[in-house]
């Protein structure tokens, strides 16, 4: 095989993108733990770790630019680099959303609301990220389409959760305590909970983006991009 250095740089890029994805997913997992356990220390760890994700993201962005400028990739190599260039942006955003979730965990220390199953929604979103990255690693087009299909389920879970939160706010049901709920406190807590659900839904959207770019990378198929 010719262009050995070039090929090894392509292989390294793939490894690094996969590493970034593992790191971002781990941060989301930690943030979910922090939300569930109201663990401020773990939440802080996630927030501080975002610098590492940003640094790796910028390094990989530069690697992609270097490969484009210096190696003039074409065909499958070009699609791989173009897809990776876009995918790392989604992974970095997933890292940002993990930071949001961690911040909610810190702010929600005395949250009055407890009924929505954030863990279940978060696990569903993370499964989509894992599946999208599996598709990227194994070049599996079926997995790409499966991620896109699963997004509907995640959206439905998030819609249902948001409706439940708002309905409960309006009826005053299911709030902790004896019914003497301070409306201002409830509003802040509900808003935070809605943002939590929204951010988990966005993680799913980023997973779909990764799957869409991966499908383009594998088959030059842009059908999931729209």
């Amino acid at each position, binding site marked *: *095989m*010719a*262009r050995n250095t070039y090929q090894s740089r392509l292989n390294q890029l793939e490894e690094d993108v996969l590493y970034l994805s593992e790191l971002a997913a781990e941060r989301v997992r930690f943030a979910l733990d922090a939300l569930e356990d109201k663990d401020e220390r773990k939440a802080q760890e996630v927030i501080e770790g975002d610098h590492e994700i940003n640094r790796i993201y910028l390094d990989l962005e530069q690697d992609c630019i270097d490969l484009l400028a210096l190696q*003039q990739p*074409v065909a*499958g190599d070009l*699609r791989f680099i173009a897809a990776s260039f876009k995918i790392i942006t989604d992974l970095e955003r997933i890292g940002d959303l993990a930071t949001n979730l961690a911040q909610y965990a810190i702010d929600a220390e005395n949250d009055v609301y407890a009924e929505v199953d954030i863990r279940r929604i978060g696990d569903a979103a993370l499964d989509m990220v894992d599946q999208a990255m599996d598709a990227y690693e194994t070049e599996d087009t079926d997995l790409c389409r499966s991620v896109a299909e699963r997004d509907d389920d995640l959206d439905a879970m998030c819609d249902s959760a948001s409706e439940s939160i708002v309905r409960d706010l309006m009826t005053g049901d299911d709030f902790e305590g004896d019914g003497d709920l301070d409306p201002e406190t409830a509003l802040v807590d509900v808003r935070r909970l809605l943002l939590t659900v929204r951010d988990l839904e966005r993680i799913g959207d980023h997973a779909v983006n990764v799957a869409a770019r991966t499908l383009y990378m594998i088959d030059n198929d842009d059908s999931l991009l729209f």
Partner: protein
Amino acid sequence: MNGTEDPTNDEMLVETDVSDGLSASANSVSRDAETVISSENINVWYGDDHALTDITMDIPENSVTAMIGPSGCGKSTFLRCINRMNDLIDVARVEGRLTLRGKNVYDDDVDPVALRRRVGMVFQKPNPFPKSIYENVVYGLKIQGIDADYDEVVEESLKRAALWDEVKDRLHESGLDLSGGQQQRLCIARAIATDPEVLLMDEPASALDPVATSQIEDLVEELAEDYTVVIVTHNMQQAARISDKTAVFLTGGELVEFDDTQKIFENPDSQRVEDYITGKFG
């Protein structure tokens, strides 16, 4: 200047008996109006060496078609089939049908010299004659005895070759005194002075520096507005930059894929083409 809109231009190919030439054209298979050159199962041998195998492709007019492939794959050989330059090689044998606007250029009644007036050629190394810039441009017209307003031809050809502004005040100085890039543009001016329809370019920028290469590439794109350009290049990025269509020849004289350049460089059908253009072999 070029004769692409002249419906009777087949007669320029024919040495004698103009009416037969026109008749042959009229009776030939009707082609897509945009196709200028059509190759049907062209095979070329150099002695026992089978240099090209069953090359079939249609080259559209007013476009740039690039031919890429590893050394010895036959891309220059194919280029030279189009204006019968292979006739000059004793051991070369061409079979198949290659038409220029429907007329088989290998028909017995085709005059190769007339053909080359319609199909100009620019070579890898700039090769101006040891004459003035002016005489270089009008050389083809003069040796073919074509009467024309030479001053006008010189100005128009040099303008089209993007050289006029640089040489208009020294037209009677030697063409050999120009820089390499200017010499190549002079050769392009010389090629288009005879009013061809097709310009064949065999690695026209490979001996030039990056600035001169850029000028030639810009020029090729501009020339494609009036001419059909077929260019052989070893520089795949150059093919990607300037061509509308790309033909990939691989070892054995085989045309493996011919498609829109964007398709070839983003998503080729053939794995062999993918491997070649990504540098995995060749």
